[in-house]
């Protein structure tokens, strides 16, 4: 997700369009990316953190959350 203080033109565009489509009451929209990785049991949480920080996200402008879900 774009950091809160960073401009998010994509979320902005969605937020502007919603009232035009007749959807009221949406006060803010932010748009980010979502990755689903299937991993072996050998991949630990620290590795996932590292993949997110060094590769999937751009820490200069994005925040991120890693969530592990059992299959």
């Amino acid at each position, binding site marked *: 997700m774009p950091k809160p203080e960073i401009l998010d*033109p*994509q979320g*902005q*565009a*969605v937020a502007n*369009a919603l009232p*035009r*489509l007749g959807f009221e009451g949406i006060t803010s929209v932010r*748009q980010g990316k979502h990755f689903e990785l299937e991993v072996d049991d050998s991949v630990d949480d620290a590795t996932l953190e590292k993949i997110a920080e060094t590769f999937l996200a751009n820490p200069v402008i994005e925040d991120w959350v890693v969530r592990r879900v059992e299959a």
Partner: protein
Amino acid sequence: MSVRVGVITFPGTLDDVDAARAARYAEAEAVPLWHGDPDLKGVDAVIVPGGFSYGDYLRCGAIARFAPVMDSVIEAAGKGMPVLGICNGFQILCEAGLLPGALIRNSGLHFVCKDQWLKVENNTTAWSSRYELGAEILVPLKSGEGGYQATQSTVDELEGEGRVVFRYVGDNPNGSRDGIAGVTSANGRVVGLMPHPEHAIDALTGPTDDGLGMFLSLMDEVVNA
């Protein structure tokens, strides 16, 4: 009789001037249409040009298809009006349900601008009758999300009914299924393609003038109707 071709401008549309010029080269009258105005001004056909409508931030064409003018286009297309969607216009027509499938990120993940050979696979549509079947034409391709995708059954249906109008020749530039560059509606009146025929109407400013055939096809269609 003068043929009136509407060219829609959305916020973020870029190739409207080119589409209008192409219509004029084919000796049609280009009529500007505005996204916020449902009035089609009595045109005989509509071009939905390329660009980045609303920045294409959500998904290419996703916001534009809800514009007031699109309601009118959908209605007119239902009555058989010829509609051409180029690049972003193709994406908008897919989002609007006038054409099947969707366009996704290029398989190379980069925007690609190149001169691209296309094979004409159907010369019975409102926009392709001037070409010989199997002819190869050279026009610019310039897009970042030009990969044509649809479910297998949709692709089978399109192939079975001959509704693939243009196919990429040589290496697949963007990962489109079956190398599909452009498709048509069941009645052959609505055509969408990723490459840009409107940039190939004069060898001075484009690779060829091969694209002019699409606009001349429309002239035949309207005049002979």
